[in-house]
């Protein structure tokens, strides 16, 4: 077994003992929650902004151009400038729109992605919640976002956004299915739904290698379904620029639009991190068979670097999809899900169940 050098559980336990020692139980808990809230808020803002910048640079290099390079060295402060601009922009009230729902929609979308971040294991012992039904919780929470999109589409009283919202409703509901089923194959391999357990089970090799063919199939299906889940890439029908101008967030302006924008990028980050956690062993360093010295060196790289490296790779893959493929039509999208992804998933699960029963996986 690898000796885990970096372990954050004693750190979190010491903070907990310090707080309970000189504060009452109730107060200690609230302070802990406030700390976690602040950490995640900061994390959310930083990751969101720099994902937008990363996407613009990656897409620019793929299109033979430079991308943002004026604001700050290499365009470093570009998205911060964008955020400030969006904060200063006027929030245009929409006539005869449902005021309450119109303003509520962005927050639902943000809350959904916030709740999903809570379950991500950044390193051993470094995660907000570690439910024993981790994956189940994540799938349940990620389907909350569609409620926000539907409300946004309906309440902004514009025909384009209504069509956009209906499309994204149908899309996300049907792609929930194959996201869940493809994660299920790894749960069968790992034997538990708790995320830290899943990572622990990949200590002696990531599931994508150990689970050989069915794991690779599950990974491909998961990537396709999750790009559809986050309304990105070839499936961005909800805000199809060339058909519906900007889909469900046509009428939003200023910081409300920024919420939708950041939430979309956070969903991409969450989906990429779960692909890394389930298939590529989260923060588990890369170990190759017998090369002990190599494995030992790998252990010295802190797990957070491993985690963010794998997630960055997944994010690059998702961006690569978006900037290469044309958009699917709504009926092709649904036939892809129900006629292609679902059967593949079901067959895959049968094979995986059979393999794990006969222990043919490594």
């Amino acid at each position, binding site marked *: 077994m690898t000796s885990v050098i970096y372990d954050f559980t004693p750190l979190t336990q010491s903070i907990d003992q310090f707080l309970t020692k000189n504060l009452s139980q109730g107060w200690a808990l609230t302070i802990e929650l406030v700390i976690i809230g602040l950490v995640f808020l900061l994390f959310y803002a930083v990751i969101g902004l720099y994902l937008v910048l990363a996407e613009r640079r*990656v897409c620019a*290099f*793929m299109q*033979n*151009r*430079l991308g943002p390079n004026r604001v700050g060295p290499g365009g470093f402060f570009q998205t911060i400038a964008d955020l400030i601009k969006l904060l200063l922009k006027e929030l245009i009230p929409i006539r005869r729109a449902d005021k309450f729902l119109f303003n509520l929609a962005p927050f639902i979308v943000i809350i959904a992605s916030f709740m999903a971040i809570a379950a991500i294991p950044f390193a051993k012992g470094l995660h907000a919640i570690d439910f024993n039904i981790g994956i189940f919780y994540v799938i349940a929470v990620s389907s909350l976002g569609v409620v926000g999109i539907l409300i946004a589409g309906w309440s902004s009283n514009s025909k384009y956004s209504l069509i956009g919202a209906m499309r994204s409703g149908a899309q996300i509901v049907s792609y929930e299915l194959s996201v869940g089923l493809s994660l299920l194959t790894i749960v069968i391999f790992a034997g538990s739904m708790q995320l830290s357990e899943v990572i622990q089970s990949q200590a002696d090799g990531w599931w994508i290698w150990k689970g050989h063919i069915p794991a690779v199939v599950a990974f491909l299906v998961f990537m396709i379904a999750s790009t559809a889940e986050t309304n990105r890439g070839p499936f961005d029908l909800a805000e199809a620029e060339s058909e519906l101008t900007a889909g469900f967030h046509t009428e939003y302006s200023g910081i409300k639009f920024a919420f939708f924008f950041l939430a979309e990028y956070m969903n991409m980050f969450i989906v990429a991190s779960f692909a890394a956690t389930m298939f590529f062993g989260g923060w588990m360093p890369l170990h190759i068979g017998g090369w002990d010295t190599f494995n030992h060196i790998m252990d010295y790289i802190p797990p957070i670097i491993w985690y963010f490296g794998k997630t960055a790779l997944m994010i690059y893959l998702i961006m*690569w999809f978006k*900037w*290469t493929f044309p958009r699917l039509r709504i009926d092709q999208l649904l036939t892809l899900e129900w006629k*292609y992804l679902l059967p593949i998933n079901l067959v895959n699960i049968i094979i995986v169940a059979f393999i794990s029963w006969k222990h043919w996986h490594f």
Partner: protein
Amino acid sequence: MEIITYITDIFKGLKSLWKGMMITGYYFVHPKEIVTQRYPENRKTLVMFERFKGEVTMPHDENNQHSCTGCGICETNCPNGSIEIITRKEVNESGKLERVIEKHIYHLSMCTFCELCIKTCPSNALAWGNEFEHAVFDRHKLTKVLNKPGSSLKKEPKEKKLEEVKN
């Protein structure tokens, strides 16, 4: 069999998607192919083509002389009236009354760069300038007077003008 086509369909599709991704991937790893022109930064080194149509100008030689006789042919030939010639009568040295150009007004805002004025000018007084930064805050700045103040007509013997007809 239906299943066979179903499966080969999937693999053919994935192969076509992968070929498309190879192109964007290729350009991602070849930054030397970037074509962006860094305009404000390369302003000093930026040189336009020799025949670039920036704006209509009236070339003046070193002692502030141009060759516009004020005949008004360019004004009649301009399709949308963006040239106005103002001339005045003046007695020249040989005692006769002669028409002299006073103001050659050129409305850059109306000009469509059709080059008819330059082509039909008998004395080749007009030429293209390479200046292309025409952004102004006030539209009136776009009406320019082409002949510089205090400039006069360049006198030269008749036969020299014929052979240097514009190519």
